[in-house]
């Protein structure tokens, strides 16, 4: 209330000044007046939603009037002249507008709300959902703060039904309802992340410290961004800037015992009430080797540095921003995970602990990955009578270098990919009077992949250029008091133009010489140069409803069809994949995979408790996945020979999340999730399905003691009992016997306990400190994780004590 009075005072002074100004200017101009029979009609509208403003006062040269219910006002008998109008409204900032009158004139004038009300609108839009009928899981800034030394994959695991597929301790990628990689789309600040996401050992290039909010849409595409999210969409955003003259920011430092290092992160935002702002953010992280309870995981350290910059103008009716971010890391891969042949893997599994264990070190040696991701975005929007029109251009450059153990003094990477993506998009959002919304858009994208031939290693992914074009439209409406309906459709066109050297022997063995003779450019003997070109036309759609039982109780029903074109790995793989010690073969004849996802969610929340139950069935036609078909002898020995196949699949499952407050400060939380996936034809289980897991949490809060909080989390992960048997008997020539290559059997169930505590202090200058202590794997349990690709070589991390101190101002 105080604030409001201050505002009134300020606006009164402005009003006075404006009136004086208009008085003087008019008295000078008036002396030239001649014809005085003109009419001026004015309509005063709310600037952000276009609604007419009643009771707005307009003054000019002694004339004064008030707008009617429709915001209209007319002045008569005006001379041919310039008039300076002073327009004021109790909810709005006053405005001075000059109008030249030569004949009868009609003008629409838009007024801007008081800043503090705008601030509320901003807050509401910050919490806005991407859809009114799709249930979104959200990760708040508080949770992100608690996980600020981790990866995106780790923090997403806090959401029921989301797990992560790891390659070692730090490299993790999100799995939504059992699906991952190209089936999970990541949107970073409105830009679809293009970072070689097809690779299961490629982690998303996003710094969680640059994000304030994450929304997860399971099993459906957010059609505005993509139509191919068969698994789901992860939308990461930074919050909108305040419309105040202020500076705010944060500095965080964290340390952890496992890895024996930590990181620092800071951000700084300067905003102005006139809408201009800028924001700077940076993160540095450094870790040494991680440790299991019994041994050091040699060469698992990493270093990471990220920075981002954003600046722009934020007005209610128009605005623009420029955003740049750099994500850059160097990531050690467990030294012992370098296996060459099937026999090496058999030996590693027999060994139980890694073959190479050295003393703890901060060194990041070979094998390692070095990734840098640049993102530049320019965005502008303007409100018109018909809605909000926005335009976006973005450029991404992803550079991935993978260094492997090589012979000779070769220090060059074994894989060196550069992926550049340009995209441009226009979006329109219109609100209608019956509380319905229409969103529509058009976008185009150009992408170029360049695998550097200087590696001296056959390219895993070929040179290609990709051209995308898409259109979408989503309409939602408040059908009745309790029913919200939404329907959307999206069309995607893709043209791929690739150049690839195929082994001539493979080209012929796969019958490509007869199927695709038009692709052949030149037969060079050992290799054949080809120029495969593909067009894909995909339709995706979404049909959803929300039934609002009460304000705090909702039921969401959704059907979503997603169409995903095969990714470069699925099309073009043809040879030894060193990091998995197997030969992987793609298929040029694949068509798009189409997922039909049905989901039903019940959500209720009140002051004391919240409950979310979500069930889904995902029927995927032409699901693309790999199966082992044979062992292939090579000069190095035998390799499992895996081929991508296209078969129909089905996935279903449900998850439950229940939080409840007992007494005043005691909280209990439960999460449960189960996911099953099978091939439809023969009910064979799909690989890498997350096992059933149960999480329970109790916490106690002391508000009077600086919000001191203690909590204990228990996580029980069952053994995955449904998995495809991809084991092989491998002939061991030295012993003249067969030995089982068992890469299928999942590890045992495990139970982990974590402890967390936090406390906050107010600083004298108005800022606040927060101290967080977390102990993960409290009892230092030795275990293996089914969803870790390196589980044949190593156990998981042992106890980890994390301490973070953050200062907000």
């Amino acid at each position, binding site marked *: 209330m105080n604030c409001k009075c201050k505002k009134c005072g300020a606006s009164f002074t402005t009003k006075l000044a404006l009136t004086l100004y208009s008085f003087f200017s008019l008295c000078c101009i008036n002396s030239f007046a001649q014809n005085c029979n003109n009419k001026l009609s004015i309509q005063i509208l709310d600037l952000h939603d276009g609604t007419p403003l009643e009771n707005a006062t307009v003054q000019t040269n002694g004339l004064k009037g008030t707008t009617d219910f429709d915001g209209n006002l007319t002045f008569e008998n005006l001379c041919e002249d310039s008039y300076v109008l002073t327009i004021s409204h109790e909810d709005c900032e006053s405005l001075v507008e000059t109008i030249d009158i030569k004949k009868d004139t009609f003008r629409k004038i838009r007024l801007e709300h008081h800043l503090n009300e705008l601030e509320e609108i901003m807050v509401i839009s910050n919490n806005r959902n991407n859809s009114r009928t799709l249930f979104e899981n959200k990760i708040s800034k508080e949770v992100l703060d608690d996980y600020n030394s981790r990866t995106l994959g780790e923090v997403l695991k806090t959401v029921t039904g989301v797990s992560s597929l790891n390659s070692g301790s730090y490299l993790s990628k999100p799995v939504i309802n059992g699906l991952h990689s190209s089936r999970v789309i990541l949107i970073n600040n409105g830009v679809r992340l293009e970072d070689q996401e097809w690779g299961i050992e490629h982690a998303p290039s996003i710094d969680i410290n640059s994000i304030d909010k994450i929304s997860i849409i399971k099993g459906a595409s957010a059609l505005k961004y993509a139509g191919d999210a068969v698994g789901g969409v992860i939308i990461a955003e930074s919050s909108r800037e305040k419309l105040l003259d202020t500076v705010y920011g944060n500095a965080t430092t964290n340390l952890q015992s496992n890895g024996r290092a930590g990181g620092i992160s800071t951000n700084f935002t300067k905003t102005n009430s006139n809408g201009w702002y800028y924001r700077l953010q940076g993160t540095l992280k450094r870790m040494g080797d991680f440790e299991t309870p019994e041994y050091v995981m040699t060469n698992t350290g990493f270093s990471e540095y990220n920075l981002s910059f954003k600046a722009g103008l934020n007005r209610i009716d128009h605005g623009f921003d420029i955003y740049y971010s750099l994500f850059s890391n160097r990531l050690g891969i467990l030294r012992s995970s370098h296996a060459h*042949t099937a026999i090496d893997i058999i030996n590693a599994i027999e060994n139980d602990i890694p073959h190479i264990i050295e003393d703890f070190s901060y060194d990041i040696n070979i094998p390692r990955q070095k990734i840098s991701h640049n993102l530049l975005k320019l965005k502008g929007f303007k409100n018109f009578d018909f809605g909000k029109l926005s335009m976006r251009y973005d450029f991404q450059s992803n550079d991935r270098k993978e260094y492997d153990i090589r*012979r000779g003094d070769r220090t060059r990477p074994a894989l060196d990919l550069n992926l550049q993506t340009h995209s441009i998009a226009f979006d329109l959002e219109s609100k209608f009077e019956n509380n319905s919304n229409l969103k529509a858009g058009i976008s185009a994208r150009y992408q170029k992949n360049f695998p550097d031939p200087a590696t001296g290693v056959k390219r895993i992914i070929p040179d290609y250029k990709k051209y995308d074009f898409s259109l979408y439209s989503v309409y939602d409406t408040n059908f009745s008091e309790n029913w919200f309906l939404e329907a959307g459709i999206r069309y995607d066109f893709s043209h791929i133009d690739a150049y690839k050297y195929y082994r001539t022997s493979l080209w012929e063995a796969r019958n490509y010489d007869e199927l695709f003779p038009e692709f052949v450019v030149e037969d060079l003997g050992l290799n054949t140069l080809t120029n495969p070109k593909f067009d894909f036309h995909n339709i995706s759609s979404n049909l959803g409803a929300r039934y609002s039982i009460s304000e705090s109780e909702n039921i969401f029903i959704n059907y979503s069809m997603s169409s995903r074109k095969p990714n470069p790995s699925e099309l073009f793989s043809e040879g030894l994949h060193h990091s998995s010690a197997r030969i992987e073969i793609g298929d040029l004849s694949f068509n798009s995979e189409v997922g039909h996802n049905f989901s039903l969610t019940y959500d209720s929340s009140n002051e004391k408790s919240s409950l979310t139950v979500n069930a889904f069935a995902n029927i995927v036609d032409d699901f693309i996945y790999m199966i082992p078909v044979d062992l292939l002898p090579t*000069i190095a020995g035998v390799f499992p020979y895996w081929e991508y196949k296209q078969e129909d699949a089905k996935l279903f499952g449900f998850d439950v999340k229940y939080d409840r407050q007992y007494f005043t400060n005691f909280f209990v939380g439960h999460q449960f999730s189960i996911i099953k996936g099978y091939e439809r034809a023969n009910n064979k289980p799909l690989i890498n399905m997350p096992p059933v897991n149960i999480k329970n949490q109790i916490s106690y809060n002391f508000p009077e003691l600086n919000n001191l909080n203690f909590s204990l989390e228990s996580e029980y992960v069952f053994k995955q009992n449904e998995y495809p048997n991809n084991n092989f008997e491998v002939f061991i020539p030295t012993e003249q016997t067969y030995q089982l290559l068992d890469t299928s059997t999942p590890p045992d169930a495990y139970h982990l306990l974590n402890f967390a505590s936090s406390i906050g202090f107010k600083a004298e200058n108005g800022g606040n400190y927060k101290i967080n202590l977390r102990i993960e794997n409290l009892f230092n349990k030795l275990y293996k994780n089914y969803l870790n690709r390196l589980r044949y070589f190593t156990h998981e991390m042992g106890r980890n004590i994390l301490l973070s101190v953050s200062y907000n101002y």
Partner: protein
Amino acid sequence: MKLLKYALLAIPFLYFSCDDDDAPEEINEEEVITTMTVTLVNHQDGSDVVTMQTQDLDGDGPDEPVVTVSGPLSSGTSYSGSIVWLNEMEDPAENITEEIVEEDDEHQVFFSASGVSMQFVYMDFDGNGNPLGTQFVLAPLTTGEGSVVITLIHEPDKPNDDTLNTAGGSIDIQTAFPVTVE
């Protein structure tokens, strides 16, 4: 109009993405070993030379390696053995042996026989005095049919007991040559 201005701003970015349409260069696959040739010279009769070869010209392609052994071995004598590794994907073929000898501390060849009894003796050693195995002596102890298994390990644990059980590292080459000892 502002939007138009923003659109104009984006044009230079779109421009530099248009480039030539040339096919990429063919990669010279440097580290691949396509061929291992083992030459065995009879100590008692220098004209008795047995050659064992495995050759896989398409590397990890679908064609299987071709394994040949030129003739039978004789018992009651010993053979002086030497191994040459080639990368025949390159033209002219690259001799990988030189690289392996240069990095002798990061390599070791392991020998074993099955079906017939044989003795193997290392004749070359790395800078630390640990065996390498590009030069060796093979002595058949019994007659019959069996196989000689030759394995090249990259980054083995050295020293070891000269068997694969303690070798560690990863397998670069492993071939079982079918042999007859008369």
